[in-house]
């Protein structure tokens, strides 16, 4: 067997766009990474430059690997340009929090840092972690050192590497969750970059002499071609949107025992307007690996993308394009070559939901959790909004954990019987005990951050969605659909941070007040949606939805989801593969 595998069982492939080429043949970011002295660049010097609140362009790129993005307050960008002032630069800082689990002590620290440096707000992301916004350059070090005190870091939270590893929340199965959470954490620790740059720049540690190879044994000097996302999910809930991951592990459980994982590869949401060669793609199922082969599988899959991914054009550099260019069979064979054994056939599994169970629920082992709906994941301390204060008060008495869900909600988890009344009292005191308030649509909605901080945003998203939902709710009520769960996701640009392309209704920003409208995604993320109306304003969005809901209410089959209906009714064609998304 091994002799057979020494020779690749598959055809030669085009290597003209991957890392086998000299840097001069590749895109500018490859040269930048290669020349960055393993992600050091001139970040340390730039932090000291008092003439600008920003950093050099090349350091902005490198800082992403360190988990932080330079942004600016876009609400005042134009006015400041006239005032001959630079944009109001600030930084988004994203925490590395594999599986979205944190302790009450960590929560208290995060809260304190957000109040001190982050404009008194924290955001729970769609990938189960915390983001700070509004951090000024001269507070970056203090923020990251503060996280370090709480045993948290921001390594690889952004950049061309493995992003935060996601893990199913599954509160009902505490033992299984613990096991898979350990795997997710291990995967993150294993796959993040290793350069000493982080400790030197942020913690002020001295550089330890080492060879280049020692410093970054897996990634080398040019890291990945683009970001690489990994997630673990436990059926029947697809809460992490496993089909949106570059590499997804679907737990196969026998009785209470975790046996191994089905492996899916090549999911990703991002696309670019006006570039039909870019498209969202759902991950493809390629087989099954036993439990003890997870780390090996990560190395094999990531190394295939590291070696063959497109490094000429960043808009074509995600794993999904490598797969579609080379062919799924070719990629699978290459993965198996690197594993040294063939993947087993995929096992049976079923997904039937991707939402969170709100309010109190029991888990095995006598513990309970309370899941809070948090609109768009935004936690802030503002007049009339005490959510941040409430969660701090809970963190001070809580002895279990907090779990961030991929739907940007928050579970106060591992609550003992004795503690439950204490938590309940605080929830009541802050008016959070009743989680039935939000409509089914609102509970199944997500928005990315967009304006004013995100540099990519072309339209509003987080600030816009709550009001838009209120208007849609009126229409739903008119059609007696107010209790119908429908997934609605909005992003301020085509890049897809809130995973809009596999929602039943997706809106992606084109210009201020203008969105593309997509419909027909699978309710639990199993199918991409399809462009239905391009570049329309709110009036047209509402009018279009009104018409669609009218037909849905009248013609649907019992239990049929909205996304399934619009396809059966022939309103939009079904998108079977990502590369046909733009057809």
């Amino acid at each position, binding site marked *: 067997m091994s002799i057979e595998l020494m020779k690749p069982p598959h055809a030669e492939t085009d290597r003209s766009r991957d890392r086998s080429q000299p840097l001069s043949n590749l895109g500018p970011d490859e040269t930048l990474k290669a020349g960055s002295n393993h992600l050091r660049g001139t970040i340390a010097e730039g932090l000291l430059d008092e003439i*600008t609140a920003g950093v050099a362009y090349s350091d902005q790129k490198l800082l992403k690997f360190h988990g932080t993005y330079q942004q600016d307050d876009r609400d005042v960008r134009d006015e400041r340009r006239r005032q001959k002032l630079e944009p109001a630069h600030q930084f988004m800082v994203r925490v590395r929090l594999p599986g979205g689990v944190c302790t009450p002590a960590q929560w208290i620290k995060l809260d304190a840092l957000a109040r001190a440096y982050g404009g008194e707000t924290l955001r729970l992301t769609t990938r189960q972690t915390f983001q700070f916004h509004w951090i000024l350059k001269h507070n970056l070090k203090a923020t990251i050192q503060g996280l370090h005190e709480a045993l948290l870091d921001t390594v690889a939270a952004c950049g061309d590497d493995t992003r935060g590893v996601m893990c199913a929340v599954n509160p009902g199965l505490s033992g299984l969750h613990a096991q898979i959470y350990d795997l997710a954490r291990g995967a993150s620790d294993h796959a993040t970059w290793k350069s000493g740059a982080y400790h030197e720049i942020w913690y002020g540690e001295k550089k330890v002499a080492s060879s280049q190879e020692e410093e970054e044994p897996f990634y080398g000097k040019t890291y990945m071609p683009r970001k690489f996302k990994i997630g673990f999910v436990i059926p029947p809930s697809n809460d992490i949107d496993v089909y949106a991951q570059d590499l997804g592990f679907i737990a196969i459980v026998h009785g209470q025992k975790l046996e191994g994982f089905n492996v899916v590869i090549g999911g990703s949401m991002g696309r670019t307007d006006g570039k039909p060669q870019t498209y969202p793609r759902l991950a493809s199922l390629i087989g099954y690996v036993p439990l003890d082969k997870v780390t090996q599988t990560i190395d094999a899959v990531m190394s295939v993308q590291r070696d063959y991914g497109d490094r000429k054009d960043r808009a074509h550099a995600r794993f999904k394009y490598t797969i579609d260019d080379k062919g799924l069979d070719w990629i699978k064979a290459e993965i198996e070559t690197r594993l040294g054994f063939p993947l087993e056939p995929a096992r049976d599994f079923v997904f039937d939901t991707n939402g969170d169970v709100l309010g109190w629920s029991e888990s095995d082992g006598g513990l309970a959790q309370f899941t809070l709906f948090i609109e768009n994941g935004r936690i802030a301390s503002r007049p009339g909004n005490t959510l941040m204060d409430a969660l701090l008060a809970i963190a001070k008495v809580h002895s279990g954990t907090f779990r961030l869900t991929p739907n940007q909600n928050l579970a106060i988890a591992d609550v003992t019987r004795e503690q439950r009344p204490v938590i309940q009292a605080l929830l009541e005191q802050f008016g959070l005990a009743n989680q039935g308030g939000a409509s089914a649509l609102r509970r199944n909605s997500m928005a990315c951050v967009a304006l004013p901080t995100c540099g990519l945003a072309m339209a509003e998203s987080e600030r816009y969605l709550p009001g838009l939902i209120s208007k849609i709710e009126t229409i739903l009520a008119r059609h007696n659909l107010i209790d119908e769960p429908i997934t609605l996701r909005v992003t301020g640009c085509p890049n897809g941070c809130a995973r809009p392309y596999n929602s039943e209704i997706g809106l992606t920003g084109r210009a201020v007040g203008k969105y593309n409208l997509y419909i027909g995604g699978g309710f639990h993320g199993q199918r991409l949606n399809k462009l239905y109306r391009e570049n329309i304003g709110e009036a047209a969005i509402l009018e279009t939805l009104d018409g669609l809901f009218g037909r849905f209410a009248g013609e649907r089959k019992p239990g049929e989801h909205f996304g399934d209906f619009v396809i059966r009714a022939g309103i939009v064609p079904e998108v079977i593969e990502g590369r046909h998304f733009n057809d």
Partner: protein
Amino acid sequence: MPSVVSEDSKKVVMPAKLTPAQLAQLEALARSLDREQALWASGYFAGLAGMGTLAIAEPPHQGDAAPAATAVTILYGSETGNSAGLARDFASRLQASGINARAGDMDSYKVRALKDERVLLIITSTHGEGDPPQSALNFFEFIEGRKAPKLAGVQFSVLALGDSTYEKYCEAGKRLDRRLEELGATRLSPRVDCDVDYESPAAQWMETVLPLLPGEPAKTSQVAALSVVSPAAPAAVPFDKRNPFNAPVIENLVLTGRGSSKETRHVEFSLDGSGLTYEPGDALGLMPLNDTALVEAILEQTGLDGQTPVTHKKADMRLAAALASEFEIAAATPRFLESWATLSGAAELRRLLGAENQAERNAFLHHHHVIDIIRAFPVPGVKAADLLMGLRPLQPRLYSIASSLSAAPDEVHLTVSTVRYELHGEPRTGVASGHLAARAEPDSTMPVYVQPNPHFRLPADDVPIIMIGAGTGVAPYRAFLQEREARGATGKAWLFFGERNFRSDFLYQVEWQEHLHNGLLTRMDVAFSRDRSEKVYVQHRLREKAADLYAWLEEGAHLYVCGDAAQMAPDVHAALLAAIREQGHLGDEAAEDYLRNLQRGHRYQRDVY
């Protein structure tokens, strides 16, 4: 005849290089100039040569040493890089066919050179709902604004990139196409609009444009460039303090960002047609108008009718007008106190007039404006002439000029902090800064004149300069650097700047950043006093950088201090002395001698107020 002088002669160079037609023009111009104008014109030409814009007028036979004029400029406004890519491709293609072409980003293009272009090709995308690309916003604002020059003699064509799913498809390109025509430029070929699949229409546009371009550089009229000189007809009487020029406001914006504890403005006036000139370091005198609300309040309090005829400086006018434009009606003077004491007979005012009560009188005047005194000590039935008798004629206000004529011809820029405070529960403003903040809309005018300041001058181009300024004290350094840029000066420059908050009060931040980037400014140190718990001022930065500072002085650097006279200037002086003592290992007296020597050699110049 100058034209027969050999080209080798060092004495008469210019005329020999001019064509007879140019020479005739120049001589005609020379005859119309008085001495001051002639001096200005000589500086103007020197500046023009330094800026490189004269390149366009250089005759083609000048030889290899002279850079050939750019025949075709391709300007691009790009959001995603498509326009930039097209522009660069086209430029190299033109160069390959022997046409001197260059491609440039609207972002970094010196808009003042626009009128000197011969063929201008525009490639621009549209952003969002009909907006220009972010990087082209400044260019659009200039060209669509009132400062845009006439472009007769410029040929152009526009390639517009867009996305037809937007309502305002290719709008940015359309705007430029329209505007260039409005400014008098000639359309070489019709605009082409491209959708997201722009490659083929773009290629088509290039095919159309290419044969229409001049095959060789410098075939167009050589005299065109001279038209920029025409500083309108010389004024009959030169404008000065007694006869100020009514300068139109062309820009008036707040430099300080949101949340600032201050309001500092950037105000630009047009000097077009005035014949007024200035040098970096000079000041501008402004004749403000008083606040009409204050005029109203005084009229109401005295019961006088604004229409009452009065005579002032042998001219007849109405009382309201006289109060608005002829007299100081805000702060009161001892003379007013005396006058009002007589009119009111108030014992309290009389008492304050006593020689022994000088300190108390000063304090009283500090806290009581004219309106406060009139209110506190009413004089029923007071006559208009009696009121005016106590008032002082309105004085012009001087501001350090923040621009250089070589960078902004026919313009003068000021940096003005609006003075606002409360007195007796009422908001009050400074007279001139209040006028600029409230009543100096673009297109309104204000009487201005130039106040030369020969004691605040740039040294030779290769001499290092150290500029220290807090707040609006940074204004003349903006002029200095503009001037040095225009002259291609090579001397090092170091700027110390202090204000309250980095985010809102970093006056002209992007300009300093650009100067640092292109090397005109060698280094810059800033002190923001209200950003951290410990207050930091420019003098602290001077102390921190003492070693380098001293080294620069030893190299012959000139030292400038501008800004607040009461605190900043003495603190800076002390910091300089300390730095010199420490770094030169000098005693107190020797250090003072060192600074005094700098002063005597005009190497330590101050403009403090």
